[in-house]
């Protein structure tokens, strides 16, 4: 079966291949697999925590051409978007853009799952940070409230 030109283009010159520091609190990592074929994909986003805008995105995909093209496309798409906008991404948009045949749909699903799980990871990290910060802020905030009584 012939790949569409767009798939070939992304496959031969994939954009955003690489890794971001997964310990960075502003980086969300999504690691997903397709049990249908046994392929795996890692997609990472770096998000500005003030604006929630995706500033960078990288991926590493061990899979077929369609999976590589899907992750290349998704990383391009999400850059500059807010995480809420990125969350709304559907695999059908990938299928349409890359003209994927039905047997290759699971490959685009992989990319959709990967971006969603990267966003979920980022949100979880931010919440943990906030919980920590408010814990610390709570103990320091106790002091000023005592002060007026002096």
């Amino acid at each position, binding site marked *: 079966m012939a790949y569409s030109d767009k798939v070939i283009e992304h496959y031969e010159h994939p954009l955003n291949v690489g890794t971001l520091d997964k310990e960075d609190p502003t980086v969300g990592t999504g*690691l*997903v*697999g397709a*049990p*249908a*074929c*046994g392929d795996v994909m890692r997609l990472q986003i770096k998000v500005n925590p003030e604006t929630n805008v995706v500033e960078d995105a990288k991926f*590493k995909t*061990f899979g077929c051409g369609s999976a590589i093209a899907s992750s290349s496309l998704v990383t391009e798409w999400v850059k500059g978007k807010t995480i809420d906008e990125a969350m709304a991404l559907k695999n059908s948009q990938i299928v349409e853009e890359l003209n994927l045949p039905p047997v290759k749909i699971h490959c685009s*699903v992989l990319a959709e799952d990967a971006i969603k799980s990267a966003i979920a990871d980022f949100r979880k990290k931010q919440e943990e940070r906030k919980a920590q910060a408010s814990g610390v802020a709570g103990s320091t905030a106790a002091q000023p409230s005592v002060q007026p009584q002096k």
Partner: protein
Amino acid sequence: MDPFATLGLVPRFDLDQGELESRYRELQKALHPDKHTGAPASQRRMTLNKAVEVNEAYRTLRDDIKRAQALLALHGNAQASGEREVADPELLMEVMELREALGEAKVRRDLTEVKALAARVDALRAGVRSGLVAAFAALPASAAAAQLSPLAAQVSRLKYYQRFLDEVSAIEDEAEAS
């Protein structure tokens, strides 16, 4: 279609490959078009359909993963066809690391490393496979979905390892060709 029934075999994971092979050959011979040249067209068509079905069943049962999926399907687990399923993060991490290591070894053209990785994954696969042999043997005929899903997860694991080993074969073929 139940491939075990098609070949007249008792459904089980730990199938005797010799028995499968001889069952298949027998049926293939019996269904051969040459043996049915005198039969009416409708019957010849039926024989042909049956032969196609037998081939299909044989291909399914010969393969560990497909055979396991067929068994799960017989037990009523429709998920066997690879629907969306949340994989165990540890497994994904393990597979990702293995694939990265393999990718690097490929770039370095380090065939010794490729072989070492293949041996490691092959051992992992053998472990999962013997676990499945035991688990399927212990599975009651009327197993509940909750009893099937851990087996389905192990079948997925097998799939990831198989994919890795296919990649190894592709690398080795490429190395031989160059």
